[in-house]
């Protein structure tokens, strides 16, 4: 990318950032809350993408890590009195550890077997959270209600105050930018290439010296950690956790987000998050009686039009528009079957 190009990209990024900062003051509280959730989901989808998109390990259970992160935050805030921002690293670390442990069975299982194993995990979590013996901590079926954190200072823009929802939005935005930057750093260098190598040619990767078991477990851990942080942010935003908020359907939703956004893509996570947050609402508006049928039609339609996700389509358009920039061979996207 030459310097003129780079200048445009930086300008574009700054404009986007400025828009994101101004946005919450232009819309109502509920919209701010929805945008907040989009950011949260973007982190979760990014986490799953690291595992499934870049590393080819399929997980139908990332909702479990989201739930664990959420509950970690809730328990620490409610029972241990920790401030909300301090719960994030703990949630991330706990989920990293658990994800790392998942790496061991994941190594032996692949494809559909791993899908089933992670699916079992996703199913287990709500049941475990309702388990009577740990109700003291988890709040059982009722869950835990949290206090929304108050903004540390007052501020007004366009006649709207910096209230709790808006403050949380900025907090989440900051964390999101940090997480995305972390992921970008991690994935663009040796680690990113190693991930793709393990996904596409595991035997060759081992022959090149990559310690497969350690690597796969670490990937799982990092992926789970990201989703755990997302879960904690989500808990803070919603100010409530309960076992039934984290059903298997959440895990499926994250996978939908990954594929719609585009596998092995960092910006794709944002498109995926926008889809999973807003399309159900749109479907609901189209048909009150069978909204999920409309959602399903959207899903299938998307896959017809953009089988490689939004980012896949944007990439293709980019190459067509600039024929000079030919697609590099060793693309970080999985080959079609």
């Amino acid at each position: 990318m030459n310097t003129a190009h780079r200048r445009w990209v930086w300008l574009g990024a700054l404009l986007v950032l400025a828009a994101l900062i101004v946005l919450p003051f232009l819309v109502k509280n509920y919209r701010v809350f929805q945008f907040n959730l989009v950011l949260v989901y973007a982190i979760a989808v990014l986490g799953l993408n690291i595992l499934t998109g870049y590393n080819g390990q399929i997980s139908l259970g990332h909702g479990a890590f989201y739930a664990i992160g959420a509950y970690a935050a809730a328990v620490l805030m409610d029972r241990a009195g920790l401030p909300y921002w301090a719960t994030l690293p703990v949630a991330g670390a706990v989920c990293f550890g658990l994800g790392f442990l998942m790496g061991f069975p994941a190594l032996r299982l692949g494809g559909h077997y791993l899908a089933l194993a992670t699916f079992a995990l996703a199913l287990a979590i709500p049941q475990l959270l309702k388990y009577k013996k740990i109700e003291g901590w988890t709040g059982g079926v009722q869950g835990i209600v949290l206090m929304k954190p108050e903004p540390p200072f007052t501020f007004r823009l366009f006649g709207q105050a910096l209230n709790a929802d808006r403050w949380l939005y900025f907090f989440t935005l900051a964390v999101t930018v940090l997480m995305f930057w972390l992921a970008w750093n991690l994935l663009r260098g040796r680690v990113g290439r190693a991930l793709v190598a393990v996904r596409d040619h595991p035997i060759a990767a081992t022959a090149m010296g990559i310690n497969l078991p350690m690597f796969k477990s670490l990937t799982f851990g990092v992926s789970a950690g990201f989703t755990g942080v997302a879960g904690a942010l989500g808990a803070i935003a919603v100010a409530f956790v309960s076992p039934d908020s984290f059903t298997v359907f959440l895990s499926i939703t994250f996978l939908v987000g990954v594929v719609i956004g585009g596998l092995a893509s960092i910006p794709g996570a944002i498109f995926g998050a926008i889809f999973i947050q807003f399309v159900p609402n749109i479907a609901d508006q189209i048909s009150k009686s069978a909204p999920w049928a409309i959602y399903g039609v959207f899903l299938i339609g998307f896959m017809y039009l953009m089988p490689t996700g939004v980012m896949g389509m944007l990439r293709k358009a980019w190459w067509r528009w600039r024929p000079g920039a030919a697609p590099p061979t060793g693309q970080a996207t999985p080959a079609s079957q």
Partner: protein
Amino acid sequence: MDAFLHQIFSGLANGCIYGSVALALVMIYQATHHINFAQGEMATFSTFIAWALIQSGWPYWGAFLATVAISFAGGLLVQRIILRPVERAPVLTNVIVFIGLLVIFNSLAGWIFEHTIKAFPSPFPQESLLRTRFFSAHEVGSIVVMLCVLFALYAFFRYTPIGLAMRAAAQNPDSARLVGIRVSWMLAVGWGLAAAIGAVAGMMVAPIVYLDPNMMAGILLYGFAAALLGGIDNPWGAVLGGFIVGVLENLLGAYVIGTELKLTVALVLIVGILTLKPSGLFGKHVVTRV
């Protein structure tokens, strides 16, 4: 001891259902290398159609056969119209399409037939000759029906020209084309058969668990587990896996952990077995050549 045996036999009866669902999954997997996650919802939808026919006065077996035929046609059309465009797309794209189908069928079932739980009749009345000490009449009847279906399938694949063509198309689609087999249509027929099997499984299980749009969700999961346990490429393994899962579920629920966590524990056990034997109990161990 009696109670223990009853749990086992009841587990076997359930296992028949799981095995059938597993078989449907394996059939589609062998032909397409995809797991049809929408299998359960399609089966539920078929069962609703049967229910509607019976409600409007059809005799049971008439409705049964009509539903099987409609489901076959439906499965075939789903493959031809909805799945064909993404046949060559990446695996995860197909997964999303299956998820889409899943929610569409589930949602349509709820919309057309409502969410209220319905009773579904059994063709094997309580007080009948079929009743034995350990099995209820319906359990015996459904085992017989499922075994008939399984043997019919076996005969179809083994002894008919189309069955042979389908096996060939599933194993080696390129060579199949070179002998003139219309591979695409074979896939469609495979889907039709899987849908028909699912319909039968649904109609056999509905009298026990009652009919509502989410009836097959848990059963699909057990079917999936059974298919993997038996080896995803092995139809006999799928059936056997079904029996194992059925018995395991019952024994765990009765003696180990109680009904709330039995799904979790069953799955954890299955995952444990798979970790030890990654290609399933009866699956082929594929040696990867560098």
